[in-house]
């Protein structure tokens, strides 16, 4: 039943121009950054050769693209997640799903997975961008993989958060703005964590991603991402069930 919801969401997503515009824009921005970094690398290449243990192209070009991608996803997710539940509530179509023999959990997971599939496409494109460097050099595939896994987990967190906020209102625009506000808040926590104490480091989502971006797959960070995602999915399910109980 999850598949039924997933298929429907993907169909709705890709028949609207929004998904295609976002895919294009994200790819455009990231490729531009990628080429800028490539240019910078070519300029300092001769100096790098004089260092005993120089950083490779993966560290100089690929990982900065991934950390930029995290910020881009932070801004894009609210646009994709806003309609998932808010629109169903506004158009009264949620009744169709609730009256069908399907559980709230299936509905929520199906919708969540539709976002995951979309981000999977984006991340694959970013990986391909990195792999194109093989034309003129070698890559550190371990670092590339850990960055990709990190970005995937970050995308999952943003999706779950966006989905929950979308369940709180019947207005997609309000859902988008609220989700955007919360995401900005997380970005600010990340900036604040640069100077101050350790506990901000522990709760900052982007700081956890930074470790993946350095090639460090930390179980604490994995646990953080999984807990974050699960917590917001459970909250969404509870919210929809609550609607039925308190209506």
């Amino acid at each position, binding site marked *: 039943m999850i598949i*039924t919801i997933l298929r429907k969401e993907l169909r709705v997503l890709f028949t609207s121009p929004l998904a295609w515009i976002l895919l294009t824009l994200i790819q455009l921005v990231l490729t531009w950054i990628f080429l800028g970094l490539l240019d910078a690398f070519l300029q300092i290449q001769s100096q790098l050769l004089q260092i005993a243990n120089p950083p490779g192209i993966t560290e100089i070009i690929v990982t900065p693209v991934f950390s930029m991608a995290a910020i881009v996803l932070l801004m894009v997710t609210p646009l994709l997640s806003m309609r998932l539940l808010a629109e169903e509530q506004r*158009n009264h179509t949620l009744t*169709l799903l609730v009256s069908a023999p399907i559980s709230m959990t299936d509905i929520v997971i199906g919708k969540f997975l539709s976002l995951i599939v979309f981000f999977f496409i984006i991340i694959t494109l970013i990986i391909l961008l990195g792999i194109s460097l093989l034309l003129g050099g070698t890559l550190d595939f371990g670092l590339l993989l850990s960055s990709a896994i990190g970005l995937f987990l970050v995308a999952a967190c943003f999706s779950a958060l966006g989905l929950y906020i979308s369940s709180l209102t019947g207005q997609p625009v309000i859902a988008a703005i609220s989700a955007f506000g919360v995401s900005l808040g997380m970005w600010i926590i990340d900036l604040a964590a640069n100077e101050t104490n350790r506990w901000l480091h522990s709760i900052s989502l982007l700081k956890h991603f930074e470790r993946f971006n350095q090639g460090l797959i930390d179980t604490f960070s994995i646990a953080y991402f999984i807990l974050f995602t699960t917590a917001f999915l459970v909250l969404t399910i509870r919210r929809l069930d609550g609607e039925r109980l308190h209506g």
Partner: protein
Amino acid sequence: MTTITLSAQNLCRNYGSHAAVREISLQLRRGEVLGLLGPNGAGKTTTMRMLTGNLAPSSGSIEICGVDLLDKPQEAKAHLGFLPEIPPLYQDMTVDEYLLFAARLHRVNKQAMPTVLNNVKQRCGLEDHGKYLIVTLSKGFQQRVGIAQAIIHNPDVVILDEPTVGLDPNQIREIRKLIRELGASSSVILSTHILSEVENVCDRVQILHKGCVMLDETLAGLQQRGTCLEDVFTQLTHNDGLGSLI
């Protein structure tokens, strides 16, 4: 033919301190069409939302084909088809896409899918509209798509909330014919404001007022007693705010 498909006992629903539905009991046999009548705010929609699992009752129990709706919601909902007051349509899907989605949601067998789709389109007069986007259809056709969605999986119990609102007289006649057809094989509950509709298609009528059942009677019984439905309705429901003004 006398198996009971839906039975609800002592349903209550409160919104805060306001009791929208008080101690309503319903029983429906296979092949029976039940009309729910009542003035605005009588609790018709609330009752229907409870019967379809969209709203949890404050107290009471609901059984559909012998399965408890609150204990095993998924199993019970498989026997249900529901058309809410506002049809739950995805505006940017085509009629075919939408009906196939509804069929998949209700676990219709994959091989049977094309037959089921053609069948339901034929029953609801949508044969020529499969490729149209729902948003481009007129209100009447949207209502038909809503009904098609509710009956696509051949449910044992069909619940229709004001199915003929916004239709022209020809369409109303067709929909009534469809409801009578449905009543032959399944049980149907329909809510309406229109008294003649009840007299036309229903076997039994319940009149709700302020959340309570005021009358539960077969239409044959009413006819036998020689009473007119309209008189009964005004008698039972006239003592609300507006009625006392007249």
